[in-house]
């Protein structure tokens, strides 16, 4: 079993109106050195396979076809193996 952690980021060339608005909040909060706020997504799930390369294959499909839109987003992920008793292997 692998635990996958996916990070999805909006491409730098794509405007992020949400990030711009949140950054305005920072000014109201009284902190003035915050720049280039960009909002992305963090998604976690398990992949129930034994082999790491099988997990990578499936996660790649999930990320590129559904979790991210390749026109405006990039993704990266990491996999950590664990055994169903709950103990992490690496």
């Amino acid at each position: 079993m692998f635990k996958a952690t996916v990070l999805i980021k909006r491409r730098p060339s794509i405007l992020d109106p949400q990030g711009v608005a949140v950054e305005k909040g920072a000014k109201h909060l009284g902190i003035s050195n915050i720049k280039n706020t960009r909002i992305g997504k963090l998604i976690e799930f398990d992949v129930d396979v034994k082999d790491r390369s099988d997990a990578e294959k499936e996660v790649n499909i999930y990320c590129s076809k559904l979790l991210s839109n390749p026109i405006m987003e990039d993704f990266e992920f990491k996999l950590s193996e664990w055994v169903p008793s709950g103990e992490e292997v690496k």
Partner: protein
Amino acid sequence: MSLKFGVVVFPGSNCDHDAYYSLRKLLNYDVEFLWHKDTDLKQSSVILLPGGFSYGDYLRTGAIARFSPIMNSVINFANKGGIVIGICNGFQILLEASLLPGVMIRNNSLKFACKDVYLSVENRETIFSAEISEAAKALKIPIAHGEGNYFADADLLKELEVNRQILFRYSDENGNVNDENNPNGSQLNIAGIVNKNGNVMGMMPHPERACDPTLGRIDGQQIFKSIANYILN
């Protein structure tokens, strides 16, 4: 070919009945609902993807609906030249399914925009616009969306212009396109586009909500009449 509209119903669609009502009761066309879990298009000659919040708009607008079983049939239908129209969330689904180019991002105001807008008609030589009166400087049709800010890179925008794929742009009531009348930040004020082949159209404004004379606006009828005329003639 006989004229029949198939209105797809996704979980979270909420303009499916508006579309059905306008097409059936006001325009007297043959219409049938198509359930998202089915794959049969029931001999429809036009597929309409309605507005709403399919699958809660989770992840990205339209992203999950795009993988509904019915969408494989819709994609095959469109790739064979079948006529498909996506309205609002339907437009977002067509973008996610790559039947239309570009992406939709959050309105630059960050607010849900719900109001009447005016649309300048940029191309009257399409299946969806041939019957729009030349006299009409702009169509008055309502919008209701939070993510209608159309984004495409510079190359794609150029391509859309060269191929005359931009169908509607947000304008004032005289058809003048300017920043002041852009309700969401869309590039080039884009409100509706067609694919390269001209058989798939997506638009953020709701023509099905501008068909009933009782409600004081009927400009949406011209879009459905254009499609009907194309099929019947």
